């Protein structure tokens, strides 16, 4: 019996609106033949849908011949995998030592307080998610961040405020 298919009722977070089981299944199948393909499959699902919803777990379990608990354990282990999509823009702020040395911690705390968010939180308008990251390899231009994947260095309050304003004014970036 496929236990993974019987616990529909335990799903709390609904899948994202654009969830498409057939498309997810095809993405997973494309990775399932590779050695150790589970991580590439999880990345592919998240790239397509912005998260790895619980609805993906039975598909992954079946494709990789794992229990659903094992799949859930892998998803839960890695900080990157989200259970629900992030905001339209994502600011990954580095919290590590090199960025601390140039006032990064106070800068981040001020920003979070101003937005009324904790790490990982999304603004109420859905525009911006602020994520903690531990080192971007931009330790020669601290404090550093990735804004929708683009590196930003030597952050100060004015630049951060401009990034937030940009995120709240514009639609999703390509």
């Amino acid at each position, binding site marked *: 019996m496929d236990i993974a298919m019987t616990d529909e009722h335990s799903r709390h977070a609904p899948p994202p609106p654009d969830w498409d089981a057939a498309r997810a299944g095809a993405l997973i199948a494309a990775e399932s033949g590779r*050695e*150790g*393909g*589970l*991580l*590439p499959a*999880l*990345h592919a699902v998240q790239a397509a849908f912005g998260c790895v919803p619980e609805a993906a777990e039975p598909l992954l379990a079946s494709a*990789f011949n794992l229990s659903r608990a094992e799949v859930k*354990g*892998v998803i839960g*282990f*890695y*900080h*990157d*995998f989200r259970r629900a999509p992030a905001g339209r823009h994502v600011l*990954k702020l*580095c919290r*590590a*030592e*090199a*960025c*601390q*040395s*140039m006032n990064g911690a106070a800068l981040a705390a001020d920003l979070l307080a101003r937005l009324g968010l904790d790490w990982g939180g999304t603004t109420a308008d859905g525009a911006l998610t602020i994520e903690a*990251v*531990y*080192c*971007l*390899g*931009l*330790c*020669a*231009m*601290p404090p*550093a961040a*990735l804004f929708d*994947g*683009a*590196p*930003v*260095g*030597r952050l100060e309050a004015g630049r951060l405020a401009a990034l937030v304003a940009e995120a709240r004014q514009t639609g999703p970036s390509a």
Partner: protein
Amino acid sequence: MSARIYLPRDAGALALGADAVAAALAREARARGIGLDIVRTGARGLYWLEPMLEVATPSGRIAYGPIAPEEVGSLFAADFLAGGAHPKQLGRPEEIPFLKRQTRLTFARCGIVDPASAADYAAHGGWLGLARALALGPAATVEEVVASGLRGRGGAGFPTGIKWRTAAGAKAARKYIVCNADEGDSGTFADRMIMEGDPFVLIEGMLIAGYAVGASKGYLYTRSEYPHAIAAMNAAILAARSGGFLGENIQDSGFSFDLEVRVGAGAYVCGEETALLDSLEGKRGVVRAKPPLPALQGLFGQPTVINNVISLASVPIILAEGAKAYQDLGYGRSRGTMPIQLAGNIRNPGLFEAAFGVTLGELVEEIGGGTASGRPVRAVQVGGPLGAYFPRALFDTPFDYEAFAARDGLIGHGGVVVFDDSVDMAAQARFAMEFCAIESCGKCTPCRLGSTRGVEVMDRIRAGRDVEKNLALITDLCETMKFGSLCALGGFTPYPVMSALTHFRDDFTRAAAQAAA
């Protein structure tokens, strides 16, 4: 007329606006009717001068930096395409003292070549190491790496050649080469720079390793936080494959090898080699007990050489120039060069590759120019989040695996993070415990629980509660973590904590002293 400009696409240069400079250059050239060929390179590693562009002139390259997009018009007006005088003109890049003092072996091409071009790699001495290895044969190649004295640049400092010898001697149908490019230590960016600036040297190093030990498949495991490095490696792998340097019967040698990039998912502990192997297998990145050594039973239970990016990227020049040339450089048992990364609150941050033996004080004060803030240097963390904090009193420590160990520190992957006198060292000790708690894989109790208890104890100390009792407790906890953890995450978190306490004790007792006053 047509001119050639070199401008980095390195993520660090991008973070400082290199793309906007590229766009301004193209716009201005078009307006002036000048044909401009902008080659996007890696970075030289002089990050306080980025975005730094270089112009190809008949007498060599001339550098200008740091350039803001608004300054591009004035560059054209100054005839910079002929190397004209300008307030931002830096002269020949190799004459800039920061670069001139270095011994660039592993980074010889970084910032110079086009990282997307296999032809440019070949034109700058690429593939010579592989050619020599193929001429020597597998066993002599292993012995060449042993003789070079190369030690693992990821941090552990284990002799690379011995790992190779072990894997070469193992009998198995399949063997693997795994490149550990999970560069998670704060203050380090050497792996990122190589992947973005000279990806073919890493491919060549992995090819040589594969040939030497009899492996036919390689994985490069890197971080999701490095999107530009991933793109550069994937492009280079495609180019190498179409150029006959990956795949079946490489360069008609009979040797076949292929290579794939795998991307982690934000777990620091996956930089630990056995956790990395589990992650590559598609599992949670949980640390394995050793033995068995990965060289005998690694990825999918098969003999596996797992080496850091810089170790593998140093192999081609060792083969090309011979072990002796490499072994002749260095200090004590630390042979060859080390790419040191100057980071944090430092005036001249960047990549400094030099023979072992340069002192911490020279690195921070002379080469690095002191702090960026202009305030006095107070503490320097060497070797990432698991490395010790050094006070100025220990600035005479030479950069050498053993010398740092003798002072209860480590050089790790070569990151040097400078803090000025505004730093609160008790807060840094707390952060070390917090980071360990966030990133622990959960396998060992001292790491999984000890790190959280460590945060709580540090909070009590910083609040001035029962400070002497709690200092004894954190010391005891650090002993337990150090000796009771399987890997360096739990085992080395005590380094930053105890070094902060040993060298900056006032920061731990200040709250209590103020309460008593």
